[in-house]
């Protein structure tokens, strides 16, 4: 029977200078990561670019000794890819250019979607309250909630990463939301903007 070395061990071998460990990590997660990126960008070439940039970031972080062992390797890599995908869409979502004329003024049609200072402060307060409430949840529910909401992972991915069935992951998410609502009520917190 073939024994598979865990990601965490490979990461530590790589940090100690074993370059072969990176080859194993890339090949092990190649298909999964490529599929994840492609599912968001639907472009083969762009997928390749983001895949490359993701691992460049991974390599630099590991070599600089800045990797935090707290999380698992794959969710961390997925998070990097996810951020790069968001960066890509942000960069390519610029407003087209219009020249204002007397009869047509672009500023009459444009809305600023960004939050003003007051709304930003309220949003920060909500985020901070929510963060504290999430910390009150049992660890298994916190884990599923964080993966689903903040790491944008599917229940299949959560199930693979936590070693529980999809139904259990769904159940934990459900209880996490029920418990969060109870905590909101118990603490008289208003989580609206």
């Amino acid at each position: 029977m073939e024994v598979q070395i865990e990601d965490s061990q490979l990461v530590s071998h790589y940090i100690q200078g074993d370059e072969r460990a990176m080859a194993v990590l890339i090949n092990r997660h190649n298909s999964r990561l490529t599929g994840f990126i492609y599912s968001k960008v639907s472009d083969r070439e762009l997928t390749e670019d983001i895949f490359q940039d993701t691992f460049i970031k991974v390599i630099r972080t590991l070599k600089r000794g800045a990797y935090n062992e707290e999380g698992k390797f794959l969710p961390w890599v997925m998070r990097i890819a996810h951020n790069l995908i968001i960066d890509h869409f942000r960069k390519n979502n610029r407003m087209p250019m219009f020249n204002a004329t007397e009869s047509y003024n672009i500023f009459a049609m444009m809305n600023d979607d960004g939050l003003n200072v007051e709304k930003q402060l309220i949003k920060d307060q909500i985020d901070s309250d929510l963060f504290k409430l999430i910390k009150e949840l049992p660890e298994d529910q916190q884990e599923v909630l964080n993966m689903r909401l903040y790491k944008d992972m599917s229940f299949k991915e959560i199930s693979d990463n936590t070693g529980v069935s999809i139904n259990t992951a769904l159940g934990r998410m459900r209880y996490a939301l029920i418990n969060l609502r109870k905590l909101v009520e118990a603490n008289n917190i208003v989580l609206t903007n």
Partner: protein
Amino acid sequence: MEKIYSKKKDKRTALKAKPETVEFLLAYSKSLKITEAKGIKFESNLN
């Protein structure tokens, strides 16, 4: 009763990054050196 989930065979070939991309990353990894001086980390790429 337990549900039985049969695994459907996926006829598509799995989406993967090209071998050239993987080779590039491994070469990049080998060439990247981090040196630290007075608390500052410097990156150098030795091709």
